[in-house]
């Protein structure tokens, strides 16, 4: 905790500097670049790549959240109960599919560019969110449910005012898992010509330029770690508010 309060602002500043003023780091990266070769990636600014990377992840995760939570609600209603074993099988087996394979298999179907990446991120992102939302909606305290029924709430009111808020922390954990996977998979999306920070790493790998690999890797790594940390903080705060 104490380390976190010091480390967090430092990492945020480091990331901002890296993305906004990469040339500041040129002396640091210079020994890693091939002699005479470029030190800082200049074909696109790190800022625009970051924004398009984050936009891709945000769009896919938002869509996955809406669809996965809707499906979780349907499956946990009495009418949808017949689909629950099937949905569990799909999430269990689906999560064993490597994200890279999902991405690679989306290419033959959808061609190159942001499209297949978006679809792969969306499909893969559904699973952890759905799994956690179902867990949240099926492990509600029976006493609370009984009380909600007792004070005369109908099924919709129970869903909106009791079940969904109670399932929120577990669902958020699922969203966090899904966002972290999406950030990583989007990086690989650069191999299918999506505009993400992975582009810098791959350019580095192709031209044997370790300086590119390092700056791209650092930027993506810092984004992932900081976003993960922020979502953990939100979950903690929420859990505290609901507990007290």
């Amino acid at each position, binding site marked *: 905790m104490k380390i976190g309060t010091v480390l967090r602002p430092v990492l945020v500043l480091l990331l901002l500097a890296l993305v906004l003023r990469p040339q500041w780091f040129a002396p640091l990266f210079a020994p890693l670049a091939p002699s005479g070769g470029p030190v800082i990636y200049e074909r696109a600014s790190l800022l625009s790549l970051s924004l398009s990377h984050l936009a891709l992840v945000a769009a896919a995760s938002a869509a996955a959240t809406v669809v996965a939570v809707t499906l979780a609600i349907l499956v946990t209603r009495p009418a949808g109960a017949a689909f629950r074993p*099937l949905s569990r099988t799909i999430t269990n087996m689906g999560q064993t599919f490597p994200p890279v*394979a999902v991405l690679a298999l989306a290419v033959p179907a959808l061609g190159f560019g942001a499209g297949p990446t978006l679809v792969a991120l969306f499909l893969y992102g559904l699973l952890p969110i759905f799994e956690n939302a179902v867990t949240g909606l099926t492990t509600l305290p029976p006493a609370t449910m009984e009380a909600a029924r007792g004070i005369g709430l109908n099924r919709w009111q129970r869903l909106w005012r009791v079940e969904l808020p109670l399932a929120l922390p577990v669902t958020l954990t699922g969203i966090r898992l899904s966002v972290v996977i999406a950030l990583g998979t989007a*990086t690989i999306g650069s191999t299918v010509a999506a505009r993400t920070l992975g582009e810098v790493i791959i350019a580095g790998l192709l031209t044997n330029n370790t300086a590119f690999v*390092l700056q791209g*890797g650092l930027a993506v790594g810092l984004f992932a770690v900081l976003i993960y940390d922020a979502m953990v903080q939100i979950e903690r705060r929420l859990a505290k508010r609901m507990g007290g």
Partner: protein
Amino acid sequence: MKSTGAAISAPGLLFAVAGVAALLTPFMTLAANRIVAGEGVLAWNIAGPAAVTPGLIAVLGGLGLGLLQRPASLRLGGAVLGLGGLLWLLTQGASCLLAETGEYARVSPAVGFWVLLVVLMLLMADALTAMAPKPLMRGAILVAVLGALAIILGSGALSDLSVMQEYAGRSDAFAREAVRHLGLAFGSLAAAVVIGFPLGVVAHCRAALRSATLPVLSFLQTIPSLAMFGLMIPILGWVGATVPGARALGIAGIGFAPAFTALVLYSLLPVVGNTVAGLAAAPPAALEAARGMGMTPGQRLLRVELPLGLPIILTGLRIVLVQNIGLAVIAGLIGGGGFGTFVFQGLNQTATDLILLGALPTVVLALTAAIVMDILVDLTRRLPEDAT
């Protein structure tokens, strides 16, 4: 309302609708060579009526049997029948379509085939879930399915398909990359167990170490794989260049070493975390009894906490194995070998079949690993119950 009779299974209805819709989309693709986009051919046009009809009847019959609610074995039979029909259509279509075209022509399965395959496999999984077979039975089913797959691939019935032609052109490379892929996935698992298991045991005993290691490991886990693999390159390149003897061991910035190290780092959290969770899962009463019998802390660990925590520890290994089989694909980007080599070669050449040649074995491998590990976890979970 429906619950009184309930003769029709709701998922079965979904499968039937999806399956019939898939039959209306192209079943196979015929292309002039391996790079250009082909044109889709509907299922009933891939060969003459005499060849196609039995396959179509089997697929529709299988979907129909899947509609039944009651005997799950009949739904399973439906799935097997449908898959058989699918295979029949594929073999008939491949030879018939190729017979009419030039020598560079390629036939491959299209959307319709893939959707039907997924639908029928889900029907199979759904039926098996309902039958709830015992762990050993599940193992037998897995062996039967893999055996059938091996026989079909080995028989050459599918050798006209484009993916198999890609394979035929590079069967040596395929075997080499398969060994490499397995080496990366299982080797990094072994290394992670050797490092992570003792670390987990010590962390179980010392709370300070526990609260220091687990957050660090979970942060490592969040670093995107491509970045992790990339960051390993300068680090291991430096180690290879400066540490005497490291280069002789094959440690260098590119190739096997950085991929292997990245995989080990990713594996540590599930191994350490689940070891700690597993050892902590022993019920207080059991620990109390062990203490009452005069066991030393070491004996308690070996005879009580470890056996009781084994299912959770094995679950950690399942996570690692499935995750590493998938992540090892990325090794293909940094010259580390594995099936990823084909995936990324295929992406570069826009050769769909080469992508499939890398991606399909990875998926089969990951699924197989998951099922085998699930069986092991169930078996260890069963033991303590039988003992009581």
